[in-house]
């Protein structure tokens, strides 16, 4: 069993109004040293694959086809083996 931790974020060139709003809120709360905020989605996916490579292949395809829209988003992930229960 493998656990993939996937982060999907906007590409740096894309305006993220939600992140802008959050940054403004931080400034209103006097966290003046905040200079940038990016927001994204986080997924935990458990995969029953024979090897780490096989799990990664599946996760790569899932990110590409479903979780991220390549027009505006990028993704990164880590895959780790789950201890047997």
């Amino acid at each position, binding site marked *: 069993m493998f656990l993939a931790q996937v982060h999907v974020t906007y590409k740096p*060139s*894309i*305006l993220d*109004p*939600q992140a802008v*709003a959050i940054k403004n809120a931080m400034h209103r709360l006097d966290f003046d040293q905040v200079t940038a905020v990016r927001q994204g*989605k986080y997924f935990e996916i458990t995969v029953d694959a024979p090897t780490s490579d096989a799990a990664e292949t599946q996760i790569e395809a899932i990110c590409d086809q*479903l*979780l991220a*829209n390549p*027009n*505006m988003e990028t993704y990164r992930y880590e895959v780790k083996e789950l201890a047997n229960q």
Partner: protein
Amino acid sequence: MMKFAVVSFPGSNCDEDLYYAITDDLHEDATIVPHTATDLTEFDVILIPGGFSYGDYLRGGAIAKFAPVMSAVKAFAQAGKPVLGICNGFQILTEAGLLPGTLQHNRQMQFICEPEPLLVANNQTMFTAAFQDQQQITLPIAHGEGNYYCDAATLAKLRDRHQIAFTYQHNPNGSVSDIAGITNEAGNVLGMMPHPERAVEAIQGGTDGLLVFKSLLQAHLRTV
């Protein structure tokens, strides 16, 4: 009779509105087709309605693009027959790769429902031929993710090939180049955020939307 298919996904909520616009107001034939349908060849036009397909969870249209019916929609589009996606339908068409670009959250992060003044930027398409060139019209918008985005190269292409069909007169959502609706390169697929099916009778506040469907009817009558 011209035959319109209205594709209904789980969570679509403008499917009936489109059905009635075609049957009550255009007086043509319409069928609501489930997301599980695999053969759409009997129809003359496919309409992809607004709503929140699959709850719009993940992203608008991101899950709908995998519905069984989408293979049939793609085949239909590749055959050069007209496909019109409205609102969530536009989002589905971009997610499915039938139209370039993508639709982001509105600039001000709020859903907006209001009558929106538009310009018919290209009346030489099968969806807009019943309008005058550069005609000013008003159609309702109702979306939270209608902020059209594409990169500069794509935008240049859209302009060169006259793929921009409708533009906003007072950009409500931050769309690139005020874009409200675009076609594909071949001109047989149109995606638009405004709702023509909500402006087909005077009691709804205007009838400009009916001309989108009349354009399709005129194009169809020329081919038969």
